[in-house]
């Protein structure tokens, strides 16, 4: 697989679906990735199986507030600055760049960076979706150390940190985000391909592309067949409540069923991402499974900040990566972590 001008848009649409309402704006990220690919050529997406055992894999992501991200755009050099810092630390070359978070703009931005560096992307990421905190990464669940962590801004500032674990990484990163003016690029959980093969969420880049292509060809039905997801409800947004507490944009979106779903009412609970879908006392889907609102007409994902009254949506519930369904995965990113009652049940057992 390779990402070039012909399939980047489909890939970005797929990343938006996997973003579960969050993960940052894909629009500017797509423009930057296009510019990178136009100037430096397509990006190869390689399987971890095809990399040498000891190839150094560098997971990268942008940290920060979406509001800052749409004003202060990347220079394009951030990825290279992270790579140089990692190569200096390890004393050898990075073999492949890895998307840290496939969901939303964070799935798209590293394409432009990889193009500029002339390096391949691995076909795996660390989440298989979008999550709000840095420790919600498969490598953390599976015991890969977070350190060393590298941070780079658009001006050439580089910070290297050695946090004790991913929870400390999150604390340190939050303060660096502030110091750098609300946004910073980061790389952490650097590992060898041999480790990455079992510590990452595999094949999510091809999945994002397949979602985008299925969306183009067969609309929402195509997305469901590629992801194994369910239609939780088809209807109209009749209420949107938003508030910000503890650094999270929280809220509830009420969807009243139309057509076959007339008479039903579902509520989507949001904390940056869509985390829980309920109907009365019943849970339709719950984090870590994916919940995405899509536009009924275009099938495109509707980011949480763009949800508005009256929108016609299809709410999709899609099974998460197996790592999140393990006891360790559920401790890191299960419903209880976000303050919702457990126990978690898989979307294919609860869905309508």
């Amino acid at each position: 697989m390779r990402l070039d001008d012909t399939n980047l848009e489909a890939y970005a649409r797929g990343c938006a679906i996997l973003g579960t309402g969050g993960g940052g704006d894909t629009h500017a990220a797509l423009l930057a990735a296009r510019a990178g690919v136009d100037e430096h050529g397509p990006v190869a997406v390689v399987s971890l199986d095809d990399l040498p055992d000891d190839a150094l894999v560098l997971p990268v992501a942008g940290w920060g507030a979406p509001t800052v991200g749409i004003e202060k755009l990347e220079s394009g050099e951030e990825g290279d600055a992270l790579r140089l810092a990692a190569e200096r630390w390890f004393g050898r070359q990075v073999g492949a760049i890895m998307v840290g978070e496939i969901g939303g703009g964070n799935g798209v931005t590293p394409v432009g960076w990889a193009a500029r560096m002339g390096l391949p992307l691995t076909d795996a990421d660390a989440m298989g979706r979008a999550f709000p905190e840095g420790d919600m990464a498969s490598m953390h669940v599976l015991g890969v150390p977070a350190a060393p962590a590298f941070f780079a801004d658009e001006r050439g500032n580089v910070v290297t940190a050695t946090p004790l674990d991913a929870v400390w990484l999150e604390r340190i990163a939050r303060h660096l985000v502030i110091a750098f003016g609300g946004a910073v690029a980061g790389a952490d959980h650097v590992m060898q391909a041999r480790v990455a093969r079992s510590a990452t969420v595999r094949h999510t880049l091809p999945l994002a592309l397949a979602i985008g292509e299925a969306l183009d060809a067969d609309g929402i039905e195509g997305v469901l067949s590629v992801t194994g997801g369910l239609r939780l409800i088809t209807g109209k947004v009749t209420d949107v409540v938003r508030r910000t507490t503890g650094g999270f944009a929280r809220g509830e979106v009420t969807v009243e069923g139309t057509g076959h779903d007339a008479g039903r009412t579902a509520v989507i609970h949001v904390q940056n991402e869509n985390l829980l879908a309920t109907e009365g006392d019943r849970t339709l889907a719950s984090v870590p499974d994916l919940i995405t609102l899509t536009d009924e007409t275009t099938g495109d994902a509707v980011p949480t900040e763009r949800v508005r009254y009256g929108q016609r949506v299809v709410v999709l519930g899609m099974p998460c990566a197996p790592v999140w369904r393990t006891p360790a995965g559920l401790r890191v990113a299960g419903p209880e972590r976000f303050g919702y009652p457990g126990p978690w049940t898989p979307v294919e057992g609860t869905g309508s």
Partner: protein
Amino acid sequence: MSLRIGIDVGGTNTDAVLLDAEARVLAWTKTPTTEDPVEGIRGALAAVVPADPDEVGSVALGTTHALNALLRRSGLGRVAVLRLAGPASRSVPPFAGWPAALRSAIEAGATIVDGGVEIDGRTHPLDRDRIRIAIEAARGAHAVAITGPFSLQDPSQEREAGALVREILGEGVGVSLGHEVGGLGLLERENAAIVNAALGSVARRVSEALGRALADLGLRATPYLTQNDGTMMSIERAVALPVLTVGSGPSNSIRGAAALTGLTEALVIDVGGTSTDVGAIAGGFPRESAAGIDLGGVRTNFRMPDVISVATGGGTVIEPGGVLGVDSVGHRLTTRALVFGGDTPTLSDAAVAAGRASMCQPSLLGERSWSAALAEAERRVADALDRMKVARGDVPVIVVGGGSVILPEDLPGASHVHRPERFDVANAVGAAIGLVSGEADHVADVGEGRRDGAIEACVSDARSRAVAAGAAAGTVDVVWVDEIPLAYMDRPISRIRAKVAGPPRS
């Protein structure tokens, strides 16, 4: 000086009304839109101007000229783009994602120079030498569009670069600053500034046409142009900020519908010849869209009325077999529709056959009827109506526009369907009653008792913009204030937006 005139230039018709101080319609006209703006505006004005022209205090014009220029890529100026952001944002060059044809019609160079503002208020020094070089290279362009990050919070760098353009290239070259036309989002704001710069000459032409028409008819009234949010601005401001007028058509209809019925909360259906717009009036103003706006394929972010358009109007063609199509005969309705002696069955013919309207020669229809097409038109409009509702239950609906005879007495989802007298010139009424508004969009520190001051600063900024736009100082009221807290900050920071409006200075 108590009378007001409103003119709305649409794709098909140019409408004008004369209102008294209580917004009663004293005179009205509806004429086909002309190629030459001067002729059309003067003709419409002449039909409604009172015996004593000095009784008229204001003339407000709403027009699709700017929007059409953009969609047809005609009459656009060439624009040099200056972005004050480097090294940030170099990953996305100006004009990225633009349709190639529009870009080549407009672009006269694009440069990203070092500089910019941070969310915490820090500024990076402007690279003035590079700016001078870029400006020298822009010689020959009609205008320069200048945008920097967080310029809504601190516009000083945009202003400084704008002053350099004037110093080097003189007053003949237009300057369009991002913070004056766009909202949050660097690329979208830059796009809005570019489109705004490109529309400068179209705006000058329209405002000169209005000025000449006023002079020809001996009117000494103050001229205004109506804008996207349903308010209006002075001619000088409209020439500087034409992009803010591109969405004024639907807004004028919505405001006019509200004025004609006295309702301040309702859905408004405006049926034209080609399409039907469904919008909403909330608190007396058109509800605005939260989503990014696509203008001729360019993503921008200034606010437009929240409107759903469906391809159904009085001129929509009924295909063989009685199936309702999506194409319209448009302004050729009066030659092509069956009741006018033409050869094409339209929704207007169907409405006449069903007894909903009487126009021209119903006898030409014979015994034919098109009930399936009418039902389909009703279904399309009812669906759009349902999408615009913000809550369950029936709501008051106002139906306006020349094509509205195609709709039945009642509509599903409507608690009551209001059909005001002069429903066919609601858009011109909306133009005539316009208030002058101002908006501000800040990112501010709201910690430790600073919140009230931050909101007051934002409202005050909006007020001074309203006064600059032509509102009478001291009568400007707050329409809304909106606060969105930002995450990942070391202290409480919010995005605060305010909109104010008041009557024009007389």
